[in-house]
């Protein structure tokens, strides 16, 4: 596995660590079906985290550790804020896995597939928290901004 692949896996792992932490914060402010959804997502992210750590360890790399604490992008003190926060978390996860998809095809095809499928899971959860879809999950606006106005940014949180 190339150094670029290791780095992309570490980035994805760091994002999963953050998601595990973030869902713990968000879950405390959610109730009913939303809390169940957060719990399910939290378990999914823990599984991905462990999977990524195992993939890295199998390559002889030391898996990145979780931070002791994380700074939240905005105060999460209500169910509404918690849902917005988890949508943002999933968007970050989608971006992290996009890095795996961007690896050179000659060496890392299976990582591309792995990343693309993980992107789908994160994008679906983001859309469910957001209650809307976005046209290009994970891609920066700059990568898709030069097309016709109707095509860009619908549903993107501002």
């Amino acid at each position, binding site marked *: 596995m190339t150094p670029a692949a290791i780095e*992309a896996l570490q*980035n994805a792992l*760091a*994002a999963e*660590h*953050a998601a595990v*932490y*973030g869902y713990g914060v968000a879950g405390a402010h959610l109730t009913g079906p939303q809390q169940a959804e957060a719990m399910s997502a939290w378990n999914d992210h823990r599984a991905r985290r462990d999977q990524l750590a195992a993939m890295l360890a199998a390559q002889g790399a030391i898996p990145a550790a979780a*931070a*002791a*604490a*994380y*700074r939240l*992008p905005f105060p999460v003190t209500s169910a509404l804020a918690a849902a917005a926060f988890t949508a*943002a*978390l999933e*968007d*970050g996860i989608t*971006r*992290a896995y*996009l*890095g795996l*998809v*961007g*690896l050179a*095809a*000659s*060496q890392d*095809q299976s990582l*591309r597939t792995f*990343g*693309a*499928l993980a*992107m*789908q899971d*994160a*994008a*679906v959860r*983001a*859309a*469910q928290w957001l*209650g*809307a*879809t*976005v*046209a*290009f*999950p*994970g*891609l*920066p606006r*700059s*990568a*898709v901004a030069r*097309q*016709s106005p*109707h*095509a*860009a940014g*619908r549903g993107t949180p501002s």
Partner: protein
Amino acid sequence: MKGGATRRSVLAALLTVPLLAATGCRTVAGATPASSPGSDVAILREAIAAKKKMIGLYTAVLAAHPDLAGQLDPLLADSTAHLAALQRRLINPGGTSSPSQLARTASASPAPAPSAPIQTAGAAIAELRSAERGAAAILVNQLRTVTPSLAQLLASIAACEATHVAALATGGLQ
């Protein structure tokens, strides 16, 4: 709140900074010798054809069931955006696109060609859902061999198609 800003900065960075790999698409692609441009063009053509077919399907369903517009219009808008992005890469591999040419191509493309009349709204939704799921699977297969930046575009489109599958499920995204 002890423990230093650097240790707590990961989440903030995660939420605000796009990955380097996702930016400057054409520059990255141009510098990568991993896969042949010929493969990119062939796969782009296939992806464009598939997306036109998808748009045609949405258009046909909307014509038969105008009451579904609230649910389907946003998904059709996503699909139209996908088609434009794919066509832009095909027409403009070197960065010299003509917006008017692009607009003409995009507006001319959604040719509704319903294969058979669709009976019920439920059956139409199910057909769309199946088509989106299949399209996402095909893209994930196609992105294995193309240049990195195109792989990322295809993966993003496939991820959107996966969200469409969820949006077309019973109960939608709520």
